[in-house]
């Protein structure tokens, strides 16, 4: 398989994540969609790293996995706080900074 297939896969997954981010109203789903996007990028990075024979991309993918894990931890913490306060996690219910 050539690099193109991996990159196309990565683009497709990224688009799925992007649509999820835009369309979903549930904040938990939004997190899932974000994770999908991050991992789409990871696929791209690893594939390019492999085809170029350069380990930097794979190292970078590990960093992204670590960052994504901590991001989810903080995000879920905030999510729980929000739920305690509003009793739901619908995106439309937290519009407090309307211009």
């Amino acid at each position, binding site marked *: 398989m050539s690099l193109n297939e991996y990159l196309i896969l990565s683009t497709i997954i990224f688009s799925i994540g*992007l649509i999820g981010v*835009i369309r979903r109203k549930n904040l938990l789903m*939004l997190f899932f969609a974000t994770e999908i996007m991050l991992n789409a990028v990871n696929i791209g990075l690893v594939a390019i790293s492999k085809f170029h024979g350069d380990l930097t991309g794979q190292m970078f993918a590990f960093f992204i996995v670590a960052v994504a894990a901590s991001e989810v931890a903080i995000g879920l913490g905030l999510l729980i706080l929000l739920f305690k306060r509003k009793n739901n996690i619908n*995106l439309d219910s937290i*519009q407090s900074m309307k*211009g």
Partner: protein
Amino acid sequence: MEKYLYIALFAPLVGSLVAALFAMRPRTLFTGIFTSSMLAVSMIASFILLSHIISTEQIVHVTMMDWISIGNLSIPFGFVADQVSVTMMVVVTLVSTMVHIHSIGYMDHDKSFNRYFSYLSAFVFSMMILIMSDNFAGLFIGWEGVGLCSWLLIGFWYHKEDMPKVKDITKSPFSTLSPYSSISPGYAANEAFITNRVADLGMLVGIFLIYWNLGTLQYDEVFEHIGSLSQGLIVAIAVFLFIGAMGKSAQFPFNQWLANAMEGPTPVSALIHAATMVTAGVYLVIRANEIFTIVPAVGYFIACLGAAVAFGAALMALVATNIKKIIAFSTLSQLGYMFVAAGLGAYWVALFHLAMHAFFKSVLFLGAGNVMHATENEINIKNMGGLHKHMKPTSIIMTIASFSLAGIMPLSGYFSKDIILEVAFGSHTYILWAILYVTAGLTAFYSFRLVMYVFHGEENFKKFGYHPHETHSYVIASMVPLAVLAIVGGFLTKNTFVEMITKKLPELEIHLSHSTANILIAITLLIASSGIAFAYYRHKKCGTYFSANLENTFVYKLLANQFYMPHIIDNVLLKPYLALSKLAWKIDIHVVDNIVDGIAKTVYNTGEKSKFAQNANLSKSLLTMVIGLAFFVVLSAIYGFAK
């Protein structure tokens, strides 16, 4: 000796700052006494310096610290007490001390008593900077400082209303027959300040020219090298410096502010507008005599202007009934005398007259203050009369000062004024001499017209219900030293003064035979005493000086309206300037403001219109972001293909 120099300089500042601490408090006698004693300290230090300089002939020169030091420009805060400045220091501190003491009595009932003393001492400090500085920059600082304090003190009663400008000569604020010295104290203060600002520009240009061409502002260096410049440049420097002097010393055409400055408290007029600040212009010419000596044409112009002002001011004083304006015109006239002497190269004569004039003129003003205090601020001399009985000491002191002003032998005024006439005659400028000679007669007449109207004749003040009474004894006591100096100052100090001052200033170069000089003295005394005699007998006989017929003549009205100078200034300068300002104001509103507002409104409206984008909905914001991103990706793709 340096410490005495610093004491003389900074004691008034200490007094001023301490008084300023109490400025907003109700009257506290302490401020008056403290500032007066600080001035006395300064006076004693000045006298010590004077005796030091007379006995050892060594000048005291100190550099306190560097002030401006950039590249080649180096201006230190340096002070010098040489023969010229020490004379000024003694005169200034002596008069100031007495005026401070007099003010304690005069300002007794004023609610801004403390503020007054703070200003007055600040003025003396500025004046000391002006006369003691060893460079033109320091002189300019003092020059502006005295201008500022003069503004503060002329407008001291700033809350008084503006007087309407009416045609009636007895009510118009522009006439010397009205009960008003000017439109209002605030107006007079601004007029004095702005007139001086205009003239100061000239002086500043002169100082810049000196710096550009000589690279220094220190007196000794400037005067050493001034001869190396081209003649035209020296003329320009001399003329520009003299323009500054004209403003401060109220020479034509900058003369109008001095008469209007009489709106200030009377001791202020005695100190600032008679004895010290207005003589700063004369001091500048004396100080820069090395410059003016090289260009005799400028000197001759100064002398001519001085003579014209001396004569014109004396004419205005003839008809005025405003007691302070008569004395103010007399000051103007005597300043003219000083400029004649300075212009003709007799610099020490000018300085001598300056000192003697300070004594007798300040005491005249202080006496006028006593009279006004006694008659509830009446300033029309025709509404007084017969006050001699009620206030003998003031009457005697003012009469003595008037004799001195008239130049009667052997009072101080005689010694100083007579040499000026001799100088004018001996320099073969006979026209100037004739003008000054006639002016001497007029001076004697108007001085005694004032004395007769105020202190003798019928008691006109009774009609107004005044109950005149002599002022406090310490106020009289403060006038006595000045009065004594007005009597014996010339007689006692002349020889010592001449011996001291000619070490610094050029000696007199007039060649008059002894007999000619004696004839001159005799005829000068003759015209002065006939002026006095005329004033005396005319008043005894008729009780008034100008008949009703005479009062209707154009000349009388011309003089009473101060040669229509205030009208000319008002109509020719102020009104067009006001119209121009209003036009500029309209341009400002319609053009400049609109442009600035337009920019602000555009930015604001843009924000207002695009506010909907901030809808606080995360999904929609993300959608917008993705659309934007997609747009730029497409754009860059198109750009890439196009290339």
